[in-house]
């Protein structure tokens, strides 16, 4: 009875009213899509970082395994796993200014991120399963360095306000300290502290980290090649061969000052001789 009456009511509506209803619906739909376009996607997980550089195929997988491509300024959420393809790199920036570079074929999960500058508290726990990475600790490493960890299958890297780079496979870690106060590499079998730039350690599965060692040019070059474009050591040998030919007399392609004293101050003097003046 009611249904009939309703139908009747509907059918009794004039044609113009029905068009208006459709028009409203269309407008609402348009507005809805417009809002989607205008606003960033609202995930349940909290945003912790932003993509600030990317190259090639870089994907993020949320906690449920759903993937999305990463581009500049794409937000990164807690529990996201970031995966780079071959010949791909990404750099992400956290809200405390921590920066992480991921190189070719790398998988890293952001297991935990908290940053509460007012309480001077926070934490960043990342898990690198494989690949190459470089980490520069931000404000978090100054206020709560003990909560800043990079976990790998073979060992965990702790930071004291520094920059370090590493290469990870499921049963091996190679990490080199690149500046700052130092890093600490720990697993169930031991701990090593590294405080000299260019020095690092290697860790095999179920073995303690090796004592700090100076990384070879080749090891550093390979790591860097994966991290930033071609990176240092990323060029082929043909260009190296050209070195002996000397400079080509071509137009200015960029100016670089000769070493200032501060640039070479860290190099030290000549073994107890009078300090050699920096070349100008």
């Amino acid at each position, binding site marked *: 009875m009611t249904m009939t009456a309703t139908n009747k009511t509907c059918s009794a509506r004039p044609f113009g009213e029905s068009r208006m209803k459709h028009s*409203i619906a269309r*407008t*609402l739909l*348009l*507005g809805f899509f*417009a*809002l989607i376009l205008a606003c960033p996607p609202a995930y349940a997980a909290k945003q912790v970082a*932003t993509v600030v*550089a*990317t*190259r090639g195929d870089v994907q993020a997988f949320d906690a449920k395994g759903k993937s999305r491509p990463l581009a500049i*300024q794409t937000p990164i959420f807690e529990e996201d796993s970031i995966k780079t393809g071959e010949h791909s790199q*990404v*750099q992400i*920036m956290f809200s405390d200014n921590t*920066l992480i*570079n991921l190189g070719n074929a790398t998988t890293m999960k952001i297991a935990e991120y908290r940053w509460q500058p007012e309480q001077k508290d926070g934490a960043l726990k990342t898990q690198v399963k494989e690949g190459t990475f470089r980490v520069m600790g931000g404000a978090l490493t100054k206020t709560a360095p003990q909560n800043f960890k990079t976990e790998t299958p073979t060992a965990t890297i702790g930071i004291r306000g*520094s*920059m370090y780079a590493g290469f990870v496979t499921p049963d091996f870690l190679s990490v080199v300290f*690149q*500046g*700052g106060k130092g890093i600490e590499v720990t697993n169930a079998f031991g701990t090593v502290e590294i405080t*000299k730039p*260019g020095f690092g350690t290697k860790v095999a599965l179920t073995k303690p980290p090796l004592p700090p060692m*100076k990384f070879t*040019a080749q090891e*550093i070059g390979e790591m*860097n090649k994966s*991290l*930033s*474009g071609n*990176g*240092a050591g*990323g060029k082929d040998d043909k*260009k*190296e061969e*050209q*070195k002996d*030919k000397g*400079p080509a*007399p071509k137009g200015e*392609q*960029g*100016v*670089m*000052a*000769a*070493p200032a004293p501060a*640039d*070479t101050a*860290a*190099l030290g*003097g*000549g*073994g*107890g*001789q009078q300090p*050699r003046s*920096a*070349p100008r």
Partner: protein
Amino acid sequence: MAQLKLFAFALIALHLSLAQTVAATELPPSYSLGKQYFDQGRFEEAYTELHKAFVQDPANLEINFYLGRAAFESGRLEEAVMAFDRILIANPDAERAKLELARAHLRLGSRELAKQYFKEVQATNPPEQVWKNIQQFLDAIAASEQRHFINGLFSFGFSHDDNVNVAPTESSVNVNLGGLTLPITIDQKAISDQIYNTTLVANHIYKFEDSPYTWKTTAVNYNAFYGSQNIHDISFLSLASGPVFQGQNYLWQIQGMLNTVDVAYDRYQSACGLSSTLTWLVDQSILFNLGATVQQKNNYQDGDKDANNYLITAGPVFTRGPDRFTLSLGKELENAANDYNSYDRFMLLARYDRQLPLDFALFASFRFQNTKYDKTDPLYISNRADNVLDLSCGLSKRLWQTEDKRRSLSGQLSYTNTKAESNIALYQYDKNVTAAELTFAF
């Protein structure tokens, strides 16, 4: 009306979305301000503004470049590395970013990485000036990685001495014969002679990697050949080796040493011991030297002169412009096998050096030495006590020097007057030595 509101809302939303995209292609205002600060050398402020611009537009390579430069100049070296890394992620052939990365890694202490970046850019045949600048960086890195250093000097001299046999000024000396004091005539005249001498000082320094310690070994050989008085020909050889610790404003070295002296081609004396010297840079114009030496001497010609010798020296060096003034005080104790050869000595040295135009330099020095012997020699009537006074002056000129200042040749003319006074007339003498010397330093 409601429809219109919804439509307007949708339009605004769309506009906002598009506006974000359009804005991303324009440089944020904070970039201009940051760049302005950067050009003015206000790197802290430049960094703050450029970082704001970067957050707004992280893909902009120009912003990243100047952010990296401002980070570098304001001491945020790690951030500089990450900024230049972003440029290389976007453009792997950005050579300028590689140069900046090389500089940042060099400052951070990652020499190996810096070297790789420098070499990579140099291999692309950049403009000549850039190539040269890179080469200078590479040379500085290579020098810092050098472990072995050799330096020293070789000199050849000719001198004239008007009293090579140290003849006393007095013609008689009082001696003790069985309790009687008797004057004995000294039949010794001053003999003048020409002396040819050679000196070689060679230092080998080994620099430990990433350590403030070095190991220094020094060999010294001195030979003097007399024109006619060959009985005075001397050969001295010394070898010293030990660690050197270089601190922020001091240098401390400890050395074990061995030396031997031959006179007239016969072994005269050998010694072994330890020495320690501390050089403290008080400020830019004052150095302070402190030294201590312990030696055991073995005399081959007179066993009574075998001795343990202890020496302490201390004194400042003042430098002001072309002037340098050196003062040194010393105290020496020698405990010989026989007490009448044991002594207690005080030394004072004052020297003034001045650099002159045309690579000339002059010096003047004063040396005083007071020696008191512990016991009376049975031959004399009282404990021997001497005062020796040297007055020297000279002029030197650098004749040649390599561009890197590592090797040079210089010549020196000097004059020394020595006056020795003693309570035993035998040890009173005068002598004048005029010398010319050529020195090659390497």
